[in-house]
């Protein structure tokens, strides 16, 4: 064989990945080969690939089970690392880890987004001394991720398992997209759980995509298949700048969705009757521009990216249709991370408020609802991007605070004409203040008394009174909301402030 043949043979072999039987098994599960995934994700595949020959002296470890390189998504340069599950189940050896570290360090130098395509069984236990405890061991991957957080967007596409320590890769990403049926995350496998704590559970139940995207909240987006997951990632990145120094590019403005009811028609008369907040969002944003995050988790609060007049904003909206729009531990947590994500990359915020407050009762107190609520307030307060707070219908108690109420320096608080801002709703307030007097009254006088106090309370919290006291900055016609937002975001565009000088706050986590 000539040198040329030897070279070509080696290249071809490495390009093929692991043994045929593993390719077959992946195919039967609807999983694409790592190089096919990258071809789909990147505009022209991987443009630059280093350490292609990593571990090439070993017979069966092509590229040491990971492809790392630089490519483009929507024309934007990005760095990628992609596990090859046909090579020892995508497990990590010494060179696998070193390759991941080097491409992360490249992303830091270039200040470009990083995409993790994860499909890995975790550490190669046989190689542990070389890849686990040392300065450039797997721990360093997480160290780098934490350093990259907020500097460049980090996206995790989860196509298979992300086990044990490896499960922290998704945890440190901005967004985790999971393919239903194949993706999973867990610290200890079901087999281990059975051995240690006697628990009998399936992988799907313990760490499946559906569970993580609806119960634990470690997953953000549930995809039906790999193609769908990849398109979501491409779409998601179009809302972000390359790094924290810039702003996401604007697109051509599109009109709102034409069909459907007006905002006036969407909001019911009674403050207690639920309505669908998605319908209102549709009437504010450019048509089809909503990119939702955590759709199936803590659904009483909606979080997502959108465009208004072509420019990117982040929406935090109470959903009265689910649990009355009341804030819980999970919804507060969901809001906190989303607000931090937007603030890190200069995405202005829009709060659409219709909230009866935070949930009460022993169950939520034991879950630490005060601590979780504090997390949301803290993230919202520290966000220095333009913040617009819209009181759609009601903002009671700490719900007003959490949704960027007047004390938290939003750039403005706008209210609809039927909005109510109060410590609590009229029924609860009358009961709290007059419970003893009501009980002492003869039965036939009670209803009249309650109604009178109710009316007085309504007068006290009248929205025009709050506007007169300059508590809200404007009262607007609901169907003028979009127009107002376009003008106001344009007016606040130059906002560039620092929250306060210090090392960092002590986060109420």
């Amino acid at each position, binding site marked *: 064989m000539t040198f040329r043949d030897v070279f070509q043979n080696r290249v071809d072999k490495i390009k093929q990945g692991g043994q045929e039987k593993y390719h077959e098994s992946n195919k039967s599960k609807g999983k694409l080969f790592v190089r096919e995934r990258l071809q789909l994700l990147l505009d022209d595949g991987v443009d630059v690939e280093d350490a292609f020959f990593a571990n090439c002296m070993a017979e069966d470890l092509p590229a040491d089970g990971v492809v790392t390189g630089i490519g483009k998504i929507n024309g934007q340069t990005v760095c990628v690392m992609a596990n090859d599950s046909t090579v020892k189940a995508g497990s990590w050896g010494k060179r696998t880890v070193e390759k991941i570290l080097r491409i992360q360090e490249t992303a830091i130098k270039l200040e470009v987004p990083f995409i993790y395509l994860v499909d890995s069984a975790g550490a190669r236990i046989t190689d542990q001394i070389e890849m686990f405890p040392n300065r450039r061991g797997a721990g360093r991957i997480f160290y780098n991720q934490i350093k990259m957080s907020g500097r460049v967007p980090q996206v995790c596409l989860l196509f298979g398992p992300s086990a044990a320590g490896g499960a922290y890769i998704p945890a440190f990403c901005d967004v985790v997209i999971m393919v239903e049926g194949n993706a999973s995350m867990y610290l200890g496998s079901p087999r281990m759980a059975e051995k240690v704590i006697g628990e009998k559970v399936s992988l799907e139940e313990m760490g499946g995509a559906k569970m993580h995207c609806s119960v634990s909240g470690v997953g953000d987006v549930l995809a039906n298949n790999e193609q769908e997951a990849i398109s979501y990632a491409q779409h998601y990145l179009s809302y972000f700048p390359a790094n924290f120094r810039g702003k996401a590019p604007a697109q051509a403005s599109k009109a709102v969705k034409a069909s459907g009811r007006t905002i006036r028609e969407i909001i019911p008369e009674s403050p*207690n009757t*639920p309505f669908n907040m998605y319908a209102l969002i549709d009437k504010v944003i450019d048509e089809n521009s909503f990119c939702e995050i955590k759709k199936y988790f803590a659904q009483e609060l909606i979080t997502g990216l959108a465009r208004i007049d072509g420019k990117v904003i982040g929406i935090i909206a109470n959903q009265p249709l689910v*649990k*009355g729009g*009341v804030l819980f531990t999970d919804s507060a947590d969901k809001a906190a991370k989303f607000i931090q994500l937007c603030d890190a990359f200069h995405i202005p915020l829009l709060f659409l408020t219709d909230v009866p407050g935070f949930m009460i009762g022993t169950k939520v107190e034991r879950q630490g609802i005060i601590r979780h609520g504090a997390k949301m307030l803290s993230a919202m307060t520290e966000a220095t991007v333009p913040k617009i707070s819209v009181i759609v219908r009601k903002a009671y108690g700490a719900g007003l605070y959490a949704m960027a109420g007047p004390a938290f320096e939003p750039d403005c608080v706008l209210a609809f004409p039927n909005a109510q801002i109060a410590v609590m*709703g009229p029924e609860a307030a009358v009961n709290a203040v007059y419970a003893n007097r009501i009980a002492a009254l003869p039965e036939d006088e009670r209803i009249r008394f309650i109604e009178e106090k109710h009316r007085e309370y309504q007068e006290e919290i009248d929205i025009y009174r709050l506007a007169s006291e300059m508590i809200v900055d404007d009262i607007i016609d609901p169907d003028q909301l979009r127009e107002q937002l376009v003008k106001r975001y344009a007016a606040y565009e130059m906002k560039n402030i620092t929250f306060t000088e210090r090392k960092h706050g002590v986060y109420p986590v």
Partner: protein
Amino acid sequence: MHEVRATMAGSVWRVEVKVGDTVEIDQEVVVIESMKMEIPILTEKAGRIKALHVAAGDFIDEGDLLVTIE
């Protein structure tokens, strides 16, 4: 058999079905009142109402069984 459970703690405001009624998917079967909000409880499966486990005015906790559908 399908069990419809409370999505949050509160009290039962209205029960919208009777034993023997047939229900569609996403049909409102119970309305809970909590934090002064009406919380509609919808079915996840179609079928016939086998049993009602609550009545208007009952206090309920998150996860309590409300209606059984067969």
